[in-house]
């Protein structure tokens, strides 16, 4: 190729399509943040841009990691993250308040964010170690449940329902792909389906009302439903082509709460309309599909499971956030990766992508050697 002659080899071998896609999404996010701030790079767009660029560099750097290296640090990373989660919990206990952060001087670490890729890697590593014949045995199930359950419980009591759901879904996805028996997944679903109505029937009026509002926020339009109602107004009023850049009244007049964080999609959809929304969804789909391809063409079981799990992490991020914003799911506080303002979601997603890129490079390198 001509390009390979001009561009140095290590650069040419980067997965440029993915990098362009991700940068495109992030750039679009920056434009939305610029508008959300009333046409200003401050306070969000500039900061977000720097954070994104930093993590992109890290992710690209990560792509040179060998699979064996990743494997070797999987359990230590998991263990450290778990310790940090416990540490946060203790700190919160001492400080008499909910806490999700570890203050390490210049940076604040949110261990629950690390847990998303960490749980995926740990479970992938675990099922690689489990012999194929043992997969359906109890021995292959309870350690996985423990690996998943302990951090999930710790995150739930923080309390951070959104992250907890994310971690559980990521872990369950890996377990599902690892080939655990069907009933293991069907049974809890069936149990909830049966138990929920009975529990609901036994509840007091006010408890029921809380559940009602949680499931159908619009029944309380001035309270919990306010976010959703305003978000739907923003998306719905955008129409096909949107109101135009910098012309979203819902976000600019602050009717839309959290228009730069969790509800950034509504801010975007108001100005860019259905077209912008579908474009963004397609871009995310392409990223996820790229990750799933990595999983499909992976040679090792670890790479298969890890790549699928990491792609699923991105998928759950995007889909839970969008369902929440469009009023299809309760508001649980999951940001839209790369678009919502905030470093932690960018970090998590870029870590996932860095690992995915490393796994992908491994495939190419290996194939070349053969």
């Amino acid at each position, binding site marked *: 190729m001509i390009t390979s002659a001009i561009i140095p080899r290590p650069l040419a071998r980067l997965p440029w399509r993915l990098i362009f896609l991700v940068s495109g999404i992030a750039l679009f996010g920056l434009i939305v943040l610029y508008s959300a701030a009333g046409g200003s790079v401050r306070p969000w767009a500039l900061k977000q841009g720097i954070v994104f660029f930093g993590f992109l560099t890290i992710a690209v750097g990560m792509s040179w990691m060998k699979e064996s290296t990743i494997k070797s640090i999987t359990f230590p990373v998991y263990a450290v993250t778990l310790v940090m989660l416990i540490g946060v919990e203790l700190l919160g206990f001492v400080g008499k308040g909910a806490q999700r952060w570890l203050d390490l001087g210049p940076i604040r670490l949110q261990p629950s964010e690390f847990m998303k890729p960490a749980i995926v890697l740990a479970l992938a590593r675990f099922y690689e170690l489990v*012999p*194929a*014949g043992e*997969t359906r045995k109890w021995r292959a199930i309870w350690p996985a449940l423990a690996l998943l359950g302990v951090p999930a419980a710790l995150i739930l009591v923080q309390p951070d329902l959104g992250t907890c759901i994310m971690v559980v879904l990521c872990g369950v*996805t890996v377990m*599902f*792909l*690892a*080939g655990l028996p069907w009933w293991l997944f069907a049974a809890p679903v069936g149990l909830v389906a049966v138990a929920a109505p009975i529990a609901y029937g036994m509840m007091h009026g006010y408890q029921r009302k809380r559940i009602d509002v949680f499931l159908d926020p619009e029944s309380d339009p001035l309270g919990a439903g306010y976010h959703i109602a*305003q978000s*739907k*107004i*923003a*998306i*719905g*009023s*955008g*129409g*096909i082509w949107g109101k135009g850049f910098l012309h979203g*009244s*819902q976000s*600019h*007049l*602050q*009717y839309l709460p959290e228009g730069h964080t969790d509800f950034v999609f509504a801010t975007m*959809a*108001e100005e860019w*309309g*259905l077209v912008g*929304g*579908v474009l963004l*969804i397609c871009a995310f*789909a392409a990223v*996820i599909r790229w990750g*799933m391809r990595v*999983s*499909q063409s992976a040679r090792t*079981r670890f790479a*298969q499971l890890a790549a*699928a799990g990491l792609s*699923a992490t991105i*998928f759950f991020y995007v*889909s839970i956030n*969008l*369902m929440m914003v*469009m009023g*299809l799911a309760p508001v649980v506080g999951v940001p839209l990766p790369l678009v919502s303002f905030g470093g932690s979601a960018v970090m998590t997603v870029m870590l996932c992508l860095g690992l995915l890129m490393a796994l992908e490079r491994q495939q190419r390198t290996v194939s070349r050697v053969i």
Partner: protein
Amino acid sequence: MKHMRITTAHQSITFSRRMMLLGGAQVAVGGLLVGRMGWLAVAQNEKYQLLSESNRVQLIPVPPRRGWIIDRNGKPIAINKASFRVDLIPQQIEKDSDVVSELARLLALDEDAVERIRRELLESRGFRPVSVADNIPYEQYAAVTVRLPDLPGVQATRGYSRYYPDGPAVAHLLGYVGTANAKEYEAEKKNPLLIIPGFKIGKQGLEKSLEPYLRGEPGGQRVEITARGKLVKELDPKPDRSGQTVQLTIDQGLQQFAARRMGDQSGALVAIDVTSGDMLAFVSMPAFDPNSFSEGIGRTEWSMLSTNDHIPLLNKVAQGLYPSGSTIKPAMALAFLKQGVDPKRRVVCNGGWQIGNRYFRCDAVHGSMDMHSAIERSCNTYFWATGLITDPEQTTEMVNYLGYGQEFDLPIPTQRYGTMPSPQWLEKKYHRKWQGYDSANTSIGQGYVLINPLQLAVMPARLGSGKLLQPRLLMNTPRKPVPLLDVNPEHLAIVRNAMTSVVNDHGTAVASKLPLDGILMAGKTGTAQVFRLGERGHQGNWALRDHALFIAFAPADQPRYAIGCIIEHGGFGASAAAPIVRDSMTYLFDKQKALAALAPLEEQWGGTLAERNARQLQAFKSVPRTTA
């Protein structure tokens, strides 16, 4: 190994299958999201666009400017004056700041006001502003304006307040304006306009009855407001439409002159243009200052007004009822003539007349009286005697025809129209037969006869013009052709001649001839006994004196104007009421002369009306009261 290999292959098949399932689920979720977004943004776009617009755009009603009220010559009698006001928006007040104290200092508010503001702040909800001060001087407005950045929630605005240049002189004619109360707000189906600070509605008089014309159409300032209530930008406003200017038939000059001419007396005067029925003056004195009412009256001033025995809060023109006294006599004479009484018929007045077992005493021994001299000299004996030989029912009919007991079609909120008794009425009301003394009392305007000053003026207007005039107040209402009175013109001439003699020959009001060459005034005095007023004993002798009345038209030969006037407890009609009518009538023909006559009088009373009012308020304030 073999077993192992099979399971590994098996595992890989499971993985591929489950990957497909996962991929399928992801595609399904993606499809769901796109579908949902399409549903929101396309199918329901219209609904959400409406919701978004109603979020974005708020309409702040802009109160219309109240229409002016002008007199027949276009002189303004109720206008709008630029005024400054300060309001508080409860939502925008910062929690810890003590804006109220700061404002109290800047605006020199008293404790009552501060307490009211604090109370209203506690009670208020949302964006509804709380009024801090109204009609403040420019210096205070400026003082607040420069400090606005440090006073969150404070709004200093300039608007308009109602101003009546003539003050008390037009008080009872126009009424006043004020802030709508809860009942009025409910009655208008919670019209948001009514709760805008500084918006006033008519509360009394013409201001109230002409409200639909004067109010105008509120405009709207369409604004973009953030969810937190911050104004972002103003959109194209919906312009307000000022209220209509209403032209009255009143002559502002005469109105003011008559009010001043009454001095400190309590009374009412109505002047009518007999060519049209236009009311030229509608004066009830003393009166409150409608300006202080439209600004929100102080407690002191209110208590001064409500304890005054001259009842300045009562609209005496429309609601004061008085015995007509002898001013009824011209109408009586006309009734007698119609019933065939010979005007030359003589009755000898020996100082009284025996009716049944009661002797009615006349004011004097008049001697032999015919109709002309009986009117001229106001001889009661003649009317007692003649009343006894005529039919009271027919007599009352004629008096009613000339205006007594009538309610006129005027835009005045309340009219009390009094009583003109008749045998039928007596039977119905008191279940007794009409007696001779009833005829006697009625024929001199006593007994059950009660009239208001409007009727007092309509009677000479009808007598003077010979037409069935209806009084009018609004210049632009269509003029209907006025029918002639259904009376014999010769009879009318007899009565008019007699009334001319009252003022110009040997009558009771010769002291009140017009000081004009070639213009004679015809009139009739009245002195009405005050019944039962003795019960108001603490008010002293003034309250026991007779009411003085006078009716007149001029010029006597070709009537142009008619005036009816009553001075409460003024004593003799000739001495208290007739001079006021004379001067008012003079004003209509020669302003300079009338004003020249007024100047020495006002000097004697101690200044103009405004000066005396101010002094009175000051004196009242300086008297220590228990509330202080």
